């Protein structure tokens, strides 16, 4: 489903991001880490929101739970890498249990339920202060290396996760699972009729959409060194991530990477200059996206656009 050119561009993009520590300053490296992290989240969301067509808004719950699971494990003396594994397994198990319950709902009810999960997680984490530190947040042991090394290390870890998420997407896209999920997106009842095990497929997609968010959350916690409930379970994050995937093209293999790149670059270099109007600009982007780019950046017919431009030039030129 994906051209060789697309794959080459993705590889090039990874190389560009991975080498930032060698030629750019710390703030660029930081942006690159965030970009890789959002890409992981957008690729993950794409499994449930893009392939399956379920309007899931629980990304922030998975991310937040992952960051807390990792941070709590680390504060109890678990080595960093192992804490990430614990967070991943925990979030996958959480998503499996939650998916069994929540995926019985459809449409609006599923959307509301998935938003409700984020709120409940945030409220539980902020009131269970004995384990999570409550509203005061939690300090995570920092790596005692040189700042540049730490930045490069976390960048490469996040990029590793991004490559894994991409590989999973490409695999699922060509696999029976992806085919079944696309059937569910088009018509769930019909898919059920012709023998797609819809419950199993949907729960699988939900777990796929969750577990790497958990890992990314845990890695984020180790990198930042401090987490609190409002930061980890942002309702804004839960909408930002689907918007990134939609911007690139939901249900495509490269869409999440393209959308995230466009979004983060715009965020960092354009509207970082308008601090007071941050939200409004994001809102305007959403409105423009819905009306003018319903299929995302990847669905625009660039060839036709170039041809039209050329046509206009040749029409204007003297014969």
């Amino acid at each position, binding site marked *: 489903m994906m051209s060789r050119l697309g794959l080459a561009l993705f590889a090039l993009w990874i190389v560009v991001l991975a080498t930032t520590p060698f030629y750019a300053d710390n703030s660029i490296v930081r942006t690159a880490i965030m970009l890789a992290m959002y890409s992981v989240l957008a690729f993950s969301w794409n499994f449930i929101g893009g392939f399956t067509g379920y309007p899931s808004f629980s990304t922030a719950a998975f991310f937040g739970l992952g960051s807390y699971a990792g941070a709590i494990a680390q504060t109890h003396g678990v080595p960093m890498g192992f804490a990430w594994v614990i967070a991943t397994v925990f979030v996958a198990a959480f998503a499996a249990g939650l998916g069994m319950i929540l995926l019985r709902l459809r449409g*609006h009810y599923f959307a509301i339920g998935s938003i409700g999960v984020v709120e409940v997680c945030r409220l539980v984490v902020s009131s269970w202060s004995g384990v999570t530190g409550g509203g005061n947040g939690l300090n995570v042991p920092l790596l005692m290396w040189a700042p540049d090394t730490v930045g490069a290390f976390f960048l490469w870890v996040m990029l590793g996760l991004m490559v894994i998420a991409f590989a999973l997407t490409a695999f699922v896209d060509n696999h029976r699972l992806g085919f079944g999920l696309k059937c569910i997106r088009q018509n769930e009842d019909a898919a059920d009729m012709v023998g797609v095990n819809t419950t199993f497929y949907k729960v699988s997609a939900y777990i796929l959409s969750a577990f790497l968010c958990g890992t990314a959350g845990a890695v984020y916690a180790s990198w930042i060194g401090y987490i609190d409930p409002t930061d980890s379970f942002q309702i804004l994050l839960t909408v930002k991530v689907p918007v990134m995937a939609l911007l690139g093209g939901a249900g495509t293999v490269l869409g999440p990477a393209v959308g995230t790149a466009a979004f983060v670059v715009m965020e960092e270099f354009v509207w970082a200059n308008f601090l007071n109007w941050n939200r409004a600009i994001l809102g305007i982007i*959403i409105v423009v996206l819905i009306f003018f780019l319903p299929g995302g950046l990847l669905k625009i017919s660039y060839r036709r656009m170039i041809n039209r431009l050329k046509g206009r030039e040749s029409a204007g030129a003297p014969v």
Partner: protein
Amino acid sequence: MDLGQVLANGIVLGALYACLAVGFSLVWGVLNVINMLHGSFIILGGYLTFFAWHLFGVHPLLMLPVVGALLFCLGYFLQAVFINKVVTAPVLTTLTLTFGLDMILYNFMTVYFSATPRQVTLDLGSIDLFGIYLPNERLLGMALALLLTGLLFVTMRSSSIGRAIVAVRMDRFAAALMGIKVNRIYAITFGIGALMAGTAGALFALVYPVTTNLTGIFLGKAFVVCVIGGLGSVPGALVGGLALGLIESISGVVFGPQHSLTVGFVVMLVLLVFRPTGLVGVKGYE
């Protein structure tokens, strides 16, 4: 605190919640759109009331119809210009669009009104009913909330616009064949949703401080009320609102006030799974 006081607080709160959520429920039931703007409409209504009172000394009760009219126009405009274009698209599209519009409105409110908590203080005294202490502002807020909700109920029942809205909710194609302009009804419905939200916000500002930070919380409460009561009907919102008010005030005593919101959301999730049509909901609007 004794039981009578807890129940009285719950009922006062519940009446306000019913008024707050009924517009959201109507929009969801008729347009099949989850209106993420609802929380901001509520706060906008509260702020308009506060600033009219604070800066120009306009009495909040006089301001109530003005707020309603302004919010109706805003809602009508947003629906007619933006949301009608994608109203038949999947949930993800409409929800994301209203969220985007909400971010714009929210940003304008934080810049021009700031996020300082504002409350209208009228000092109307209080009454003591069999040992239950009730400030008069709360009673006034409750009475007006119930009155507005009742007015909407009557409008939906007996006016031609109300009948048209119900018809569109039942079957939009059949309604169009009967000569109803569906897009216009959608815009009016959205306007009514905004009107109810704005007036509910104005009433809230009489009783509790309002701030832009509360938009998400009010939106969450609208979710919970709709799921508890069921969609698209005024009695459903009333039952859901009263239920949520009582749940919050009782769980506030049992588990502590900081957990009352959590309990509300947990009740919502449980109901979503076991009874998605709500307590008095009609089947077929899922």
